[in-house]
């Protein structure tokens, strides 16, 4: 990987606009001034590095990393994929963190008051570092949908939140993955912030029978593409 190449400009059309009235919370939280475009400086092409030794292998197994007196309720799944950059190069050695609701659509969070039950054996977060080919893998529970205050009777489709570090801080990404075939996807206000249907489709994890474990767990695949690198070499530190 050529760490000295500048990152390509972020493709604004690939992301939701800051202000998207269909998602009410953006109304008072979206900046109104345009972002100030910068050429990358050393501050942006660098970023934090995490080591395997900082994590425990069980961190990537959400069916076990908070188990108290048994297994969590719900459908066990494998969730896996690769982290790539826009030039289709693997992004190895980067931290991937996920969080999610439990099988009933309830988050283990002091501010979540949805009436579905907390699962005593499910925390809802995990983390792993990508391997040399950029691959990551989690074992978890398929989350449930849940209602949220937005338009009248809005429900989130089942989804997994992802936080991904790249090789530079300007590749930093937080996103969500959904499950192929979920009828709530077409009704979702958060996905609806993106006018481009093809962009929404890139957030839908696909059923992966080849990676499933017979008599144990189905697998879903979700690849993540971070900004690529431009053609120009990073010059000095200005």
């Amino acid at each position: 990987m050529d760490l000295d190449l500048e990152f390509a400009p972020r493709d604004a059309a690939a992301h939701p606009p800051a202000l998207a009235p269909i998602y009410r919370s953006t109304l008072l939280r979206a900046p109104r001034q345009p972002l100030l475009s910068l050429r990358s400086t050393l501050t942006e092409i660098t970023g934090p590095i995490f080591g395997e030794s900082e994590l425990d292998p069980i961190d990537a197994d959400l069916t076990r990393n908070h188990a108290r007196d048994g297994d969590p309720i719900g459908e066990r799944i494998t969730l896996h994929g690769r982290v790539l950059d826009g030039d289709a190069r693997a992004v190895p050695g980067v931290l991937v963190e996920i969080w999610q609701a439990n099988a009933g659509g309830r988050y283990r969070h002091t501010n979540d008051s949805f009436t579905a039950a907390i699962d005593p054996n499910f925390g809802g977060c995990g983390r792993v570092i990508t391997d040399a080919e950029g691959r990551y893998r989690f074992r978890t529970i398929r989350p449930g949908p849940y209602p949220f205050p937005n338009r009248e009777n809005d429900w989130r489709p089942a989804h997994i939140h992802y936080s991904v570090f790249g090789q530079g801080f300007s590749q930093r990404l937080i996103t969500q993955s959904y499950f192929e075939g979920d009828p709530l996807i077409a009704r979702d206000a958060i996905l609806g912030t993106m006018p481009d249907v093809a962009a929404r489709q890139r957030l839908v994890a696909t059923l992966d029978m080849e990676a499933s474990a017979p008599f144990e767990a189905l697998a879903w695949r979700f690849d993540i593409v971070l900004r690529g690198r431009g053609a120009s070499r990073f010059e000095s530190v200005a």
Partner: protein
Amino acid sequence: MSKLPETPSQTAGPYVHIGLIPRQAGFDIFENNLGAAMLTPETKGERIRIEGRIFDGADALVRDALVEIWQADAGGRFAHPADRQNGPPPDPHFRGWGRSGTDFATGVWGFDTIKPGRVGPMAPHASLWIVARGINTGLATRVYFADEDAANAEDPVLRMVEPARRFTLIAPRALRGGIPVYSFDIRLQGDGETVFLDV
């Protein structure tokens, strides 16, 4: 140019704490809470605190956000292989990265860190990245230090900011219990809106 389209950003939502700072969500799961502490006793440099609040377009406190910081060490070096500057190597006791949730009651976020050094022609600064419910793509900005007037005047990034908005990136300094505290309030929208960067 790029061969693959980027994965779209999505809001971190109101429960970002579960994934990134689970203790604030109300439970303890990992032995090692990444980003919770930036310093060890061996870290070189002047101990400082950078803290602030976040306000929305109605001037209300944003209490459910998460802020990450990324900065150089006291010598102006980044703990990353792309930093090929000459001089002493980066401080092995400083990663330069941390994360903090805004307090659910007071809305205050903060980092106990060290004052970064100058990086080439750039004045000492720290990058911040803000995610929350209602923020579709993480917002990047920079903290500069009010006691660095001369360096700030030469900084190539600050000079790109229209003069009337530069104050939004410059944190005033005050002493609290002998420790310099730099205050950096962030305004997401409206009067005094913070300058956010497309980096």
